[in-house]
């Protein structure tokens, strides 16, 4: 199967990293697509938790927002948002938390707050939301970001969420930090000793030089670079059906309340 987009490869790559029974803290967008693809294919027992308080939700279409009604209607239970952060995330019950950001550095620290100085930003971004505590307290963090020198930077403008930063071990963070960074060219993983992100997986047909050019720091490439197989026909069929259902559902006009 060669007819697939880079977004599809990225989504399938993230989905393959999830295992049956894994407790995941899901974000909107590509992580939501990847988690639901995994749930509808190899990991039917995957537990999806969205920060809006929906636990073990099984949406039939992907939500636009983190709190769409679809998530509540298909959840095993809906709890108050403070419970999600204190009694589930902080208490160490989350196996995998998904994060993305505007900027990432070589240690997997993330910026989703500002470009430019905090007090006078050139671009004000949305901010931390759940990210800061997901980064610190989920057992593993999966970061999903398209590779580009604008995003993979030598130095962050602002550190919203901590990766493998100096002093993490003594910081009170109980989670393991970033385990993988899934990009549209391949996958980066932290080196055990330094925590520096190195390229360990390249997708089919993508030269290592392209990955090197897309990363804004001098990229280390693992000596034993793995290649990940292309999406299978079955994976693409499930993903495309999910996206088609989602598009159809989002086209339905909402009648204004009377």
């Amino acid at each position, binding site marked *: 199967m060669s007819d697939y987009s880079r977004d599809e490869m990225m989504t399938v790559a993230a989905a393959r990293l999830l295992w049956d029974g894994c407790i995941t803290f899901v974000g909107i967008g590509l992580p939501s697509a990847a988690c639901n693809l995994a749930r509808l294919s190899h990991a039917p027992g995957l537990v999806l938790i969205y920060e809006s308080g929906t636990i073990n939700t099984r949406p039939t279409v992907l939500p636009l927002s983190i709190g769409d*009604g679809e998530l509540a209607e298909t959840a095993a239970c809906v709890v108050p948002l403070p419970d999600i952060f204190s009694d589930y995330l*902080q208490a160490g019950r989350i196996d995998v938390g998904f994060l993305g950001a505007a900027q990432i550095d070589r240690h997997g620290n993330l910026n989703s707050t500002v470009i430019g100085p905090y007090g006078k930003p050139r671009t004000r971004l949305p901010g931390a939301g759940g990210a800061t505590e997901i980064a610190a307290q989920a057992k593993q963090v999966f970061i999903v970001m398209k590779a580009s020198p604008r995003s993979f930077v030598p130095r962050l403008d602002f550190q919203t969420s901590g990766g493998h930063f100096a002093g993490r071990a003594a910081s009170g963070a109980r989670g393991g930090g970033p385990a993988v960074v899934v990009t549209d060219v391949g996958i980066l993983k932290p080196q055990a000793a330094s925590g520096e992100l190195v390229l360990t997986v390249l997708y089919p047909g993508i030269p290592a030089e392209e990955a090197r050019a897309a990363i804004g720091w001098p990229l280390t490439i693992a000596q034993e670079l793995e290649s990940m197989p292309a999406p299978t026909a079955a994976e693409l069929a499930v993903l495309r059906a999910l996206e088609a259902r989602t598009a159809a559902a989002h086209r339905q006009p909402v009648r204004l309340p009377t």
Partner: protein
Amino acid sequence: MTEFLPLAKAIEKHVPDGASIALEGFTHLIPFAAGHELIRQGRRDLHLIRMTPDLIYDQLIGMGAARRLTFSWGGNPGVGSLHRLRDAVEQAWPRPLELDEHSHAGMAAAYRAGAARLPFGVLRGYIGTDLPAHNPRIRAVTCPYTGEALATVPALNPDVTILHAQRADRLGNVAIEGIIGAQREAGLAAKTLIVTVEEIVDELPPAMNGVLLPHFVVGVVSPCPGGAWPSYAQGRYGRDNDFYLRWDEIARDRARFSAWMGRHVLGTPGHREFLDSLRQGTA
């Protein structure tokens, strides 16, 4: 005794200029009608508190009603930027906006502390982030039992919290179904709680584990059908995702934003007419 007032009267009586107010609801049950009424009545210098400012605070900020914002995630969910919030922070338009910025976990802990009338909330949080360096209100305490350093946030006790709910009964008990975010905590943390509701009923079924704010914590109930649009009310009407997408275009441009607010909010006497104005033509 819970008062039953029309929304405009409730705002007039309980929300003065300069008040700290929390209009909560996490994606679901956002009290848009109340936000619009604050704009119609020309409130100024408000301290706005909300985990996710959403379109409701984008509108208040763009209309110049706010001097300060306490928040934890300021985007248009699933769409992108809140352009009016960005313009206020980046260009001080239409006026400068002070930020009191947190994480979701920090805001949740601050509401919980406020609800319990404790002075601060405590969490194993704000680790590995620059936020405390820019917000002196985020501090730390040493646990007296274990010696662990834990983050603290001052309790949030808004002068007024405004919520939207599906139903209230004639005593003022309030029932909420679906995603509730931090509504319960924000409601209990308030000095005065105003709840707009889709419907007032003679009797609510026994609540069991469903969320119910008992009448003695509810200051005012205002009937306001459709009061959460373009957010939603589970079981009544869905989230208008298409409007959230269109808002990106409306709010991107100062003049287009001002014209939209002038026509649909300032140009209508109340929420029913606001919804009618959207039915009649291009929003």
